[in-house]
């Protein structure tokens, strides 16, 4: 960590002195003040009794940083360990223990900031947020209020007509700061006492604070999904909402179109995209009802009940804690050096937007296919391996087989996996095996329709395509002699139809193709069949 801190050039005394004159200009959230709504307005409206209402949404996402050790201690962060088995002296706040920043956690947050084109603050600082609770051993959370690691950035959500997002929209991100997670209370272990598990205590979180730029549940959902995709691409958070490694505080207010922002409420700790959308829908409706009934919205913290899909009050502004934030005197300001930033930047993978553009422009994929393939990093990775294998197997350039590979992955493999109740990450068909299958199709060894059948067998048995084709005799027949023989049989059996065709009933051509293929048990090469039929009938 010393490389991050200019311990030598800026000794503690000087650093402490700098903190002494730093103006205290930040407020926790820039809203509800004046907010700039970026991009276009969604058409989402709440239809009240007296008028239409717009919804204004901001999200604070807590994302657990992917790292082996905690933010300020060396204890493990692995999920699912026995209670209190991953607790260092620091995490338990024993007397005299001191935090030391984990370089990897800082690195991950910086990389995340870079991935959303955010300003990276070369000088940031940790603050203590003071409050008492049994899951908070220190009696304070180490966070960053005044000088966050990452400043202003943004991400883009894509147009989705069906969801009511008419065009691409940029959502502003105000900041990302890093902070410690708390422990977990267990209330079901003893009749009168609560137990506390400190495994999570001190785990690094990124708090990613959006601007109040979203105006419909769909936009909020799209924002969360996009953010999660970026985090997974970067590898800074696994985005697993079920395990709690990503959760959102949802800020909602309503207003009549054109009016000033209304008073907001904050619904805490919502842990799925669906629940976030439901919470917004319910909360916006509730606020409209309150206002239209002559009431007013109180600024408060609310809880979402996944069972009923409703929100309820947790505490009002009056009961809010006074957190007594102040700079953590155990920690020096964090100063990032150019080298460190360079490494962070260099280690960033191609991100979803860039990848999507490349798939469209360089690989010639349709916008739809490019979007599907880049939505999740796992899909994109799978596709790129498949593309490589397919090109190799057919001795072609990737761009020449990209459409074939993309179509097969999206329509054939996804469909077949879905039918078998499997996902891409546990697919028995690997990209190598997929490439081999596609090569058989490309070489005309099997037909496209037979390949679907082969794929299903591959999923069932895990065998190679070639082996299945051999074993089951699915090889496509391209031998003209054999096909001609079958065509002759079909024509002999249907003299009336032959006459009708020759008399000008062109539509019958399909009938002959079908009959011939049927006679060949589907293995006839469709191209050869077509050509020969045309000759013979013509």
């Amino acid at each position: 960590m010393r490389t991050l801190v200019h311990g030598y050039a800026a000794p503690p005394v000087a650093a402490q002195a700098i903190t002494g004159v730093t103006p205290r200009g930040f407020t926790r959230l820039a809203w509800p003040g004046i907010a700039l709504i970026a991009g276009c307005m969604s058409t989402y409206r709440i239809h009240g009794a007296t008028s239409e209402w717009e919804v204004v949404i901001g999200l604070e996402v807590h994302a657990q940083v992917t790292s082996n050790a905690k933010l300020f201690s060396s204890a493990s962060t692995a999920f699912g360990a026995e209670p209190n088995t991953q607790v260092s002296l620091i995490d338990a706040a024993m007397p005299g223990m001191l935090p030391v920043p984990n370089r990897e956690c800082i690195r991950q947050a910086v990389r995340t900031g870079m991935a959303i084109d955010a300003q990276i603050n070369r000088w940031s600082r940790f603050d203590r947020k003071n409050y008492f609770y049994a899951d908070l051993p220190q009696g304070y959370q180490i966070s960053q209020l005044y000088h966050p690691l990452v400043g202003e950035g943004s991400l883009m959500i894509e147009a989705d007509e069906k969801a009511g997002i008419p065009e691409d929209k940029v959502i502003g991100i105000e900041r990302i700061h890093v902070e410690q997670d708390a422990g977990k209370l267990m209330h079901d272990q003893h009749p009168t006492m609560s137990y506390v598990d400190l495994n999570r205590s001190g785990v690094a979180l990124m708090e990613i604070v959006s601007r109040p730029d979203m105006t419909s549940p769909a936009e909020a959902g799209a924002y969360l999904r996009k953010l999660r995709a970026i985090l997974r691409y970067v590898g800074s958070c696994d985005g697993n909402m079920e395990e709690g490694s990503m959760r959102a505080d949802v800020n909602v207010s309503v207003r009549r179109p054109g009016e000033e922002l209304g008073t907001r409420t904050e619904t805490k700790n919502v842990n799925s995209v669906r629940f976030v959308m439901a919470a917004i829908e319910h909360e916006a409706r509730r606020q409209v009802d309150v206002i239209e009934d002559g009431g007013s919205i109180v600024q408060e913290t609310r809880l979402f009940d996944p069972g009923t899909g409703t929100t309820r009050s947790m505490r009002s502004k009056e009961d809010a804690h006074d957190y007594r934030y102040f700079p953590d005197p155990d920690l020096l300001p964090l100063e990032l050096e150019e080298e460190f930033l360079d490494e962070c930047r260099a280690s960033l993978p191609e991100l979803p937007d860039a990848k999507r553009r490349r798939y469209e422009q360089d690989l010639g994929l349709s916008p739809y296919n490019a979007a599907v393939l880049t939505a999740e990093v796992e899909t994109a990775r799978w596709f790129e391996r498949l593309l490589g294998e397919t090109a190799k197997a057919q001795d072609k350039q990737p761009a020449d087989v990209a459409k074939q590979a993309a179509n097969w992955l999206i329509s054939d493999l996804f469909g077949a996996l879905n039918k078998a109740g499997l996902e891409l990450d546990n697919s028995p068909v690997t990209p190598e095996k997929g490439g081999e299958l596609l090569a058989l199709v490309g070489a005309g060894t099997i037909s496209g329709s037979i390949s679907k059948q082969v794929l299903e067998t591959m999923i069932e048995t895990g065998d190679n395509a070639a082996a299945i084709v051999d074993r089951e005799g699915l090889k496509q027949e391209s031998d003209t002699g054999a096909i001609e023989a079958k065509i002759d049989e079909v024509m002999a059996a249907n003299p009336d139809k032959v006459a009708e065709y020759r008399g000008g009933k062109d539509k019958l051509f399909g009938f002959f193709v079908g009959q011939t293929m049927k006679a060949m048990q589907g293995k006839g090469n469709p191209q050869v069949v077509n050509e020969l039929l045309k000759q013979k009938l013509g």
Partner: protein
Amino acid sequence: MTDLTQLGVKAIRDGVASGDFTAREVAEGFNANVAAAQGALNAFIVATPERALEAADKVDADRAAGKPLGKMAGVPIGMKDLFATRGVQTTAASHMLEGFTPEYESTVSAKLWEAGAGMLGKLNLDQFAMGSSNETSHFGNVVNPWRRSGGNAQMAPGGSSGGSSAAVAARLAPAATGTDTGGSIRQPAAFTGITGIKPTYGRCSRWGIVAFASSLDQAGPMARDVTDCAIMLEAMAGFDPKDSTSLDLPVPEWEKHLDADLKGKRVGIPREYRMDGMDADVAESWDRGAQWLKDAGAEVVEISLPHTKYALPAYYIIAPAEASSNLARYDGVRYGLRELPEKANLQDMYAATRAEGFGAEVKRRILIGTYVLSAGFYDAYYTQAQKVRTLIARDFELAFAQCDVILAPTAPTAAFALGEKTDDPLSMYLNDVFAVPASLAGLPAMSVPAGLNRDGLPLGLQIIGRTFDEQGVLNAGLAIEQRAGFTARPDTWW
């Protein structure tokens, strides 16, 4: 045989190394003194004679085996009970941590044991190091071995390292660890006629020291003379990756470079420290000290530290603010005291535990700290105090363009009687008026004995140096020590 407990760190280390006596003999002598004085002085919360013997035996065995000996080999010391010691109760002199036995060893104490020192016991102090007289300890006050000539009123040993100062002055230990947040090494050293140095902030690791105010806390040695302090500080200091504020610098060889010749050095006398109604004996000893440094070859110049008068108020905002947060962990949930009244919920448990576990002075500072950090007051108090802190540091920076070290009194008066200031916290806080500025600026500062006042009580002189310049401080201290010829000792009345 000579009384080995009359010897200091250097004499013991050298004597053990050369075989004049064994480390065990030394440890036995001090163990006996500790036991004999406990009832009267109450300097220790826990005595650990077996630990002292164990360490001594190891040193004797190493010597017999021809192994190299450490910097503190054979020297038994007292450990302020703010340092976590594995397997030995660590209380910070509070009821909150009574019976708390850590499973870890503070970095500083570990380094001392590594250097061959042994532990005589855990020394009494002001509760959580908050106090200037040792009267806030949950385990009863320490008594200063010094008395006014012809009187038998019990005097305060200073604070918060009052157990350390009393033990060294009374020859219960040749040296002891102290910690200094706003004078807690220097003021008790001055009150008991011993020497103590607070190094540059970050020199000694804070890891494993019960925190009072993190941006100010700094450990240092308390011993009989400058040389002993230099030796012990070398053993205590050093970069510690477990403390983010620790200085990543090599530890200088302070002992080797001790030099009382101050030719070419300039000594600053801060105008603002000469306050109206200053104690005449203190003023006189300050003048005498300046003359001694001149005699040692230094040039004496008047300097100005214009923001001095704001130092104490700023300190009493910053230190309590940090303390209010640092002490939040003592909540009865995981270790230490837990008070669980009938049908108590979590909040009730917190309230009962903290009401019972903290003494009045600790509560006062938690309240002050909580207040100055609360919404609506933060800017007026905490932010303002931090700005003052920056100005104080700049005062020193400018002053050090004109001088190499600064000479000032350590405390405004000699030791006061126990009970004399307990009802008046402000007058108690004023005791730190000369000590606090160097703490706020993170500078090395030491107190050396400069003689006795008219009541026969010791007075200390303070030397403040530039950041990282412990050597300059030690050298000036040595020049004073050589000229002060301070050989006075308290009568053994206990």
